[in-house]
C-alpha cells in the first residue's frame, strides 16, 4: 500500500428518521464529484423513527477496499449516537457534535468542535428543515472541501422546490461552513489535491449497480414484494424498466412474485425477482419447480441479519445454506455471489444469461452491506458480458417436439408460447422427454441425470471465469477462501497482514454452485493453511467446502450484523499463520 495524501474516515451518527442517511449520501456525492474515491457503510434500526442511524464514509485518492476500521472524524448528531460511537474515534481524530442535542464534551487527545446546528438552522436561516445543510457545510469545511461542492448538491436536491428553497439551503450550507471556519481551532486539511477528476467513475451502491446491470442484461420482467434491504431494487426498476420496454409488478407476496416471474419466463421474457431471507423462504417451493420444469429464473437474495424476522436492517451472509440446499428432493440450481459493487453490475448479467441458457433458477446472494455500500467504481464496461439467448427449437416440428429432450449438455431446446406447432406442457411432475408424466426408475434417472448435467457443463466451461485470485498462493502462509461481499475487507486485511510480514493469498469464487472444486483444491494445495471468513454464526461456506472438496479450512465466522473489520481479520490471519 503506497502512502497517499488523502485517506480518512468520517462517521455520522444521529436519530433515525432525522436525515442522517441523506446527509451521508450528500457528503459522499460531493466528495466523489471532487474526484476522490469513496466507500460507505450504513446501519440503522428496523423502525421508521427512533434509534440511531450510522453512516460511515471513507474518502481517499486511491482505490478503496473497505469502509475503514478507525474513525478520523466523528459527527455526532444525537446523544445515543455519541455514546455508542465515540470509542471508535481514533486518538488525534476530531469530534464534531451538534451542541443542541449532545451535551458538552471534553476529550483528551481529540479535537472537539461543538456546533449548534439546530439553532443555526432555526435562528439564522429560519427553517429547521435546513439542519442537514448546515451540517453538510460544516463537514465539508472541516475536511477542506470547497463550499461549491455543497452548492451543487443543494441545487440538485432542491431545484424542484423552487429558487427560494435553493437559496435558503445555500445560506444554511454557508452558515455551517463559516461556523467551522470561525470556531474550529484544529482545522487540518484532510483532503489532498486531486490531479484531475476522472469522469469514468461512478458513485453507486450494490443495489443500484445490480439494477443497471439487469437493465443492460436484458431484463424484461420484474415482479417482487417489498422487503428490506431488497426493496430499492424494485423501486429503482419501477420507473425505468418500462422505458426499456419491460414490466414491473408488485405482487401480493413472494410466492406470487416468483409465480409471475416463472410465467413470464415461460412466455419468453428474461425475468427476475429480488427479496431477502423471509421472502426467499417462501419462494423455495417454486424455485424447485423452476429447476424441475426447467424454467429460467433469477432470484436475488439481498441477505439481512438474523433468522426469521431477525435484524432486517443489518447485514449477514446467512442464506448460503438455504440457497444451496433449500429444495425438497433434488433439482439443479446455480448460486452466485457478487463480491463488490462493481461486480453487482456484471454478475447479474451473467445470472440472467445462465438462467436463460441453462433453463434453471439462478440465485444471486447479495447482502445489506453490499446493497447499501455506496462507493466509487470504474464506469462499467457495457461490452464485457455478451448476451446469451435461450436455445430454442426449430419451429414447426409438429407434434414431435420433445421439450425435455435428453441431450449431452442437459439443455433441451425450449419453445415459447406463440411458436407454431411446438406446443408442450411445462411440468414439475417427473416426465419423459415429451413431458408426459412418467414414473419409472429408468426415466427418473435419465431425467435427473440430464438436469444435473447442466451444472456439470456450466462448471466445466465457465467456472474459471468466475474465480478471482488475489496475491500469490504459492507458499502463502494463509490462503483465504471467501465469498460475497467480504472481498474488499479481506483484500485490505491481506495488505495489513503482509505489512506485518505474513504472506497471504485469497480466492473468491463468484459461482458457488456448481462449485469450481478443482481450482479451489489447487489453490488450497498451494497455501499452508486455509481460512474461511464469513459473516454468519455457523460457518456455512466452510462447511460447504468441507462437504464438496478435500479442503479442511479453518472457519472464521463472525455474526454481528456488521461487515467484517479489516483489522480484526488481519489479527486472525496472523494468529493462524503463527499457529
Amino acid at each position, binding site marked *: 500500500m503506497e502512502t497517499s495524501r488523502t485517506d480518512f474516515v468520517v462517521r455520522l451518527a444521529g436519530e433515525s428518521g432525522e436525515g442522517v442517511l441523506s446527509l451521508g449520501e450528500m457528503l459522499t456525492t460531493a466528495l466523489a*464529484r471532487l474526484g476522490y474515491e469513496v466507500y460507505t457503510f450504513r446501519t440503522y434500526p428496523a423502525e421508521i423513527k427512533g434509534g440511531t442511524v450510522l453512516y460511515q464514509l471513507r474518502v481517499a485518492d486511491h482505490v478503496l477496499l473497505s469502509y475503514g476500521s478507525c474513525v478520523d472524524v466523528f459527527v455526532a448528531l444525537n446523544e445515543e449516537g455519541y455514546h455508542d460511537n465515540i470509542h471508535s474515534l481514533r486518538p488525534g481524530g476530531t469530534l464534531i457534535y451538534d451542541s443542541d442535542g449532545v451535551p458538552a464534551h471534553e476529550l483528551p487527545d481529540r479535537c472537539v468542535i461543538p456546533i449548534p446546528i439546530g439553532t443555526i438552522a432555526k435562528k439564522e436561516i429560519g427553517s429547521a428543515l435546513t439542519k442537514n445543510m448546515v451540517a453538510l457545510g460544516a463537514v465539508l469545511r472541516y475536511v477542506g472541501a470547497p463550499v461549491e461542492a455543497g452548492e451543487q448538491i443543494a441545487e440538485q436536491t432542491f431545484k424542484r422546490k423552487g429558487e427560494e428553497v435553493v437559496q435558503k439551503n445555500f445560506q444554511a450550507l454557508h452558515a455551517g461552513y463559516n461556523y467551522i471556519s470561525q470556531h474550529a481551532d484544529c482545522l487540518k486539511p484532510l483532503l489532498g489535491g486531486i490531479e484531475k477528476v476522472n*469522469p469514468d*467513475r*461512478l458513485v*453507486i451502491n450494490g443495489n*443500484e449497480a445490480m439494477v*443497471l446491470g439487469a437493465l*443492460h442484461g*436484458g431484463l*424484461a*420482467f420484474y*415482479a417482487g414484494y417489498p422487503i428490506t434491504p431488497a426493496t430499492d431494487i424494485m423501486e429503482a426498476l419501477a*420507473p425505468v424498466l*418500462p*422505458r*426499456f*420496454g419491460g*414490466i414491473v*409488478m408488485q*405482487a*401480493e*407476496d413472494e*410466492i*406470487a412474485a*416468483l*409465480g*409471475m416471474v*416463472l*410465467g*413470464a*419466463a*415461460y*412466455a419468453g*421474457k*428474461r*425475468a427476475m425477482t429480488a427479496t431477502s431471507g423471509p421472502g426467499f423462504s417462501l419462494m423455495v417451493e*417454486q424455485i424447485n*419447480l423452476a429447476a424441475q*420444469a426447467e424454467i429460467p429464473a433469477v432470484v436475488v437474495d439481498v441477505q439481512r441479519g438474523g433468522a426469521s424476522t431477525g435484524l432486517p436492517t443489518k447485514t449477514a451472509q446467512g442464506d448460503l445454506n438455504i440457497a444451496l440446499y433449500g429444495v425438497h428432493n433434488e433439482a439443479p440450481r446455480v448460486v452466485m455471489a457478487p463480491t463488490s459493487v462493481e461486480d453487482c453490475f456484471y454478475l447479474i448479467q451473467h445470472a440472467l444469461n445462465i438462467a*436463460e441458457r441453462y433453463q434453471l433458477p439462478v440465485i444471486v446472494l447479495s447482502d445489506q452491506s453490499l446493497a447499501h455500500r455506496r462507493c466509487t467504481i470504474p464506469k*462499467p464496461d457495457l461490452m464485457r458480458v455478451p*448476451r446469451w*439467448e*435461450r436455445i*430454442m427449437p426449430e*419451429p*414447426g416440428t409438429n407434434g414431435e417436439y420433445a421439450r425435455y429432450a435428453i441431450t449431452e449438455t442437459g439443455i433441451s431446446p425450449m419453445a*415459447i*408460447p*406463440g*411458436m*407454431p*406447432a411446438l*406446443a*408442450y406442457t*411445462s*411440468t*414439475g*411432475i417427473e416426465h419423459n422427454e415429451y*413431458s408426459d408424466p412418467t414414473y419409472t426408475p429408468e426415466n427418473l434417472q435419465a431425467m435427473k441425470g440430464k438436469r444435473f448435467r447442466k451444472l456439470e457443463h456450466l462448471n466445466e466451461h465457465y467456472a474459471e471465469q468466475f474465480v478471482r485470485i488475489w496475491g500469490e498462493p504459492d507458499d502463502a502462509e494463509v490462503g483465504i477462501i471467501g465469498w460475497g461481499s467480504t472481498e474488499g475487507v479481506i483484500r485490505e486485511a491481506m495488505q495489513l497482514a503482509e505489512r506485518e510480514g505474513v504472506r497471504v493469498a485469497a480466492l473468491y469464487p463468484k459461482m458457488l454452485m456448481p462449485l469450481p472444486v478443482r481450482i479451489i483444491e489447487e489453490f488450497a494445495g498451494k497455501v499452508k493453511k486455509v481460512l474461511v471468513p464469513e459473516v454468519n454464526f455457523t460457518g456455512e461456506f466452510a462447511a460447504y467446502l468441507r462437504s464438496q472438496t478435500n479442503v479442511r479450512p479453518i472457519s472464521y465466522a463472525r455474526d454481528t450484523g456488521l461487515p467484517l473489520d479489516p483489522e480484526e481479520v488481519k489479527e486472525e490471519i496472523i494468529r493462524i499463520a503463527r499457529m
Partner: protein
Amino acid sequence: MAEAQTISLQTQPIQRQPKDYRSDLEPIWCPGCGDYGVLNALFKAMSQLNLDPDKTVLVSGIGCSSRLPGFVVTYGFHGVHGRILPVATGIKLANPELTVIGVGGDGDGYSIGMGHFPHAARRNIDITYIVMNNQIYGLTKGQTSPTSSTGFQTKTTPFGSVEGAINPLQLAIVSGATFVARGYSSMPNQLAKVLVEAIKHPGFALVDVFSPCVTFNRVQTYDYFKGKVYEIPDTHDPTDKFAALRLAEQEEPFPVGILYRVDRPTLDEQVAVIKQQAYTPAPSVEQLFRRYQ
C-alpha cells in the same frame, strides 16, 4: 432487449374442430369423472372461438383437474399446487397476445390458492379461470375442500365439517372480477357457451363448474344435482353487482350461467399503456450512468 420472437408462419385460416384440440395423452380421470365434461366443453368452446393452439396457454396447479393441460394440444403450464393465478398473470403480462386460461380444482384455487384469487380479480388481468369444483380433494383421495358443505364427512372430518363453505362467486364479485359465471359439467353445451363468453371477455373471468368426483364425493353426485341446477333467466341483469351477489347466494337450486359481467380496463392493457408511454426507443444504460457521476 432479449425479447424472444413470436414466430408466426403464414397459414390458411382453418376452422378447427373440437377434436383437433385433443392431445395424444389419454385423460387419467376415473370413468364418469365430471372433468371429462369440462374438457369436452372446453374443446367445443375453443373450436367455436377457433383458438389458435399455438397462441393459447392452459395453466394449472396440482389435482386431478389440474392434469387437464396435458390433454389439450395447446401450450400448457402444470405448476405447483395453488399458484395458477400468479403464473397466468406473468404469462399474460409477458405476452398479451396469448389467450391464457387457468384450469384447476377447488382445493387448488380456493384453499391453498386463495391468497392469489382476490388479487387476480382486483387486477382484472385478462385471463379465464375455470375451477372444476367437485367440492372435495380428488387426487389426495377425498378430503374436505373449502367448498364442501357444512357437515360433510370425509376422513379428515369424520364428525362432519364444522366450517362454512366458501362462496367463490360472491368472493370473485366483491374482489373485482369483471366476469363471473357458473357451469355444470353435465350441461356441456351450456358450459361451452359460458366458456366462449368467458374467454372472449376482456378481464378476469371466473367460471366455477360443478364437476362431480364420482370416486370420493358421495354427496354432490350427479343424482344430487338432478333438478338442483337451473339456467339463469334472461331477465337477470349481469351488470348489476348486487343482483349478481343475490343470485350467487342461491343454493339448491343453483343458478348456472353468467352472473356478472362488467367492463373495466384490464391489468395487461394498463400495463401496456404505461410501457408505451414510458418507452424510449433505444434507451441506454450509459445514459443512466450519469445519475451516478
